[in-house]
């Protein structure tokens, strides 16, 4: 087992490259682009209306709920892709597995609807 640090080098390199690219682009755009800092320009844009009050106001939890549920179902749907690619190879076993999986997903969907999680007006 080669546990020397050098075996981690490619990973480190990738990290450096990724971070470096982001950093560099941001740096370059800041330096290269023409910038004029005025008070009006630095103010948050609110369709021309002067901003008032604290920005950190509580807002409805429904946004979070919907977003979380979206992420949940979105991620689970991704499972369909590998199955679709290997559809022939997996055969009946694959279909059955996917039916169970989608069944669970659907029952979850049914549950959140019954629970009223997607009722926006409630």
């Amino acid at each position, binding site marked *: *087992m080669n*546990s020397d640090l050098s075996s*981690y080098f490619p990973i480190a390199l990738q990290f450096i490259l990724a971070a470096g690219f982001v950093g560099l682009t941001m740096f370059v755009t800041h330096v290269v682009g023409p910038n004029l800092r005025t008070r009006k320009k630095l103010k948050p844009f609110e369709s021309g209306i002067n901003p008032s009050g604290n920005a950190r106001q509580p807002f409805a939890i429904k946004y979070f709920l919907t977003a979380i549920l979206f992420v949940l179902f979105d991620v689970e749907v991704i499972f369909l892709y590998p199955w679709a690619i290997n559809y022939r190879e997996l055969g009946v076993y694959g279909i059955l597995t996917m039916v169970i999986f989608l069944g669970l997903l659907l*029952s979850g969907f049914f*549950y959140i609807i*019954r*629970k009223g999680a997607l009722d926006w007006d409630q």
Partner: protein
Amino acid sequence: MNVLLTLSIAATLALFFGVLRLKNLATPVIVIGLLASLVFNAMEWNNTTSIFNDMMLYNNFTVAFASVGLFITLILVLFYSELSAKHEFHLPEILAIMLFGTVGGIVLLSFRNMVMLFLGIEILSLSYYVLAGIRKQNVYSNEASLKYFLMGAFSSGFLLMGIALIYGVTASLNLNEIAGYVNNAKGIVPPYFLVGVLLILSALLFKVAAAPFHFWTPDVYDGAPTLITALMSSVGKLYSFGAFVLLFNSCFIPLIADWEVILWIAALLSMSVGNITALYQKSVKRMLAYSSIAHAGYMLLALVGINNLTSGSVLFYALAYALASVVSFVVLYIVRDKKGSYDIASFNGLAQKNRMLAVVFTISMLSLTGIPLTAGFFGKFYIFNSALQSGYYWLTAFAVINSFIGAYYYLKPVVAMFASKSDEEITMPALSNSLLILLGILIILIGALPGFISGVI
């Protein structure tokens, strides 16, 4: 496997009964699910099965720990559905989440792969985060949930980092292969590996609420609904310690010289911080929270000098602690329900008003103190015996001294119950009443005949 399936199906069914306006069916389904899984669990005895290509292994160790976990969960479900039902709109969900947590716990008792360890911990913890915050309108409950979640997320991060480092060195997540690597290395492993072990150790210490990773415990145990605290402190501890024993027993024994120092420092700190801070508490709930830190310290003692007695003594202690802590939290819940405060003063005169309640509570306090002829005494006895076998004389002596400090604060509510007067009547629903009596008898019975439990594994 049957156990996990039964639990998940029962929980899911309960959720659906909840939304289909069949709420009354939810509790029976949960109870039947728990009973069935207890039976399935018992059927696995002496029948070691490997699940999912060595991801999990269901053996006698699992069966023994899981039966305790399932039994205590069942008791708490019954208490919850009788005592708390009137306050609770979300009863089916709560009971279902308790069951999901149990699923995570059983994964923790049977994992053979680091991924399953992580999954188990996450399933268990996520359930507990939600349960801690189940009182949506209560600020303390919210605070408890949030704190628990944030700190738990942190510790999960450390756990993952540790697992990753170990994977980096051994190129495997399978416990047998990791154990093979450690055995071949003959005590000389690269530092990354050790760092990995210690990160996992820290994360597990967090889960069992041992000092110096205990800071969440008082706040979370205090803020969470009392019956949920009972769940977290009894079975939560049982599962985490089960995972602890399982992991360190199977993989890291050859490296004991490297991690035992940390462990005994943690044990020492937990016992002292838990006991000494508990001395000063006015609120019984907070006192029990601190005392649970101390009990984690005692249990760590068995792990310090890990040997063939460890799993038996940890199981016994966890059972004894779970029984006593369930009783004490349930009584506390009833008292608080009546008097509106967790103060020791709320216990004033309880002995006059409901003698059964007072006697059972006294038994549980005596058991927590470790008075002979209660389960708690033999819990301590086995733990100390196990530590002595490994040659930790001073640590054991320290633990014994600590357990005597405990006598002071455990007796405070007992004295209050018997020494003062009160006019308020306290009545108990029938089922909870008989359950409490059953638990009290169990504590005494296990204390009188410990041989039947301790010989199991």
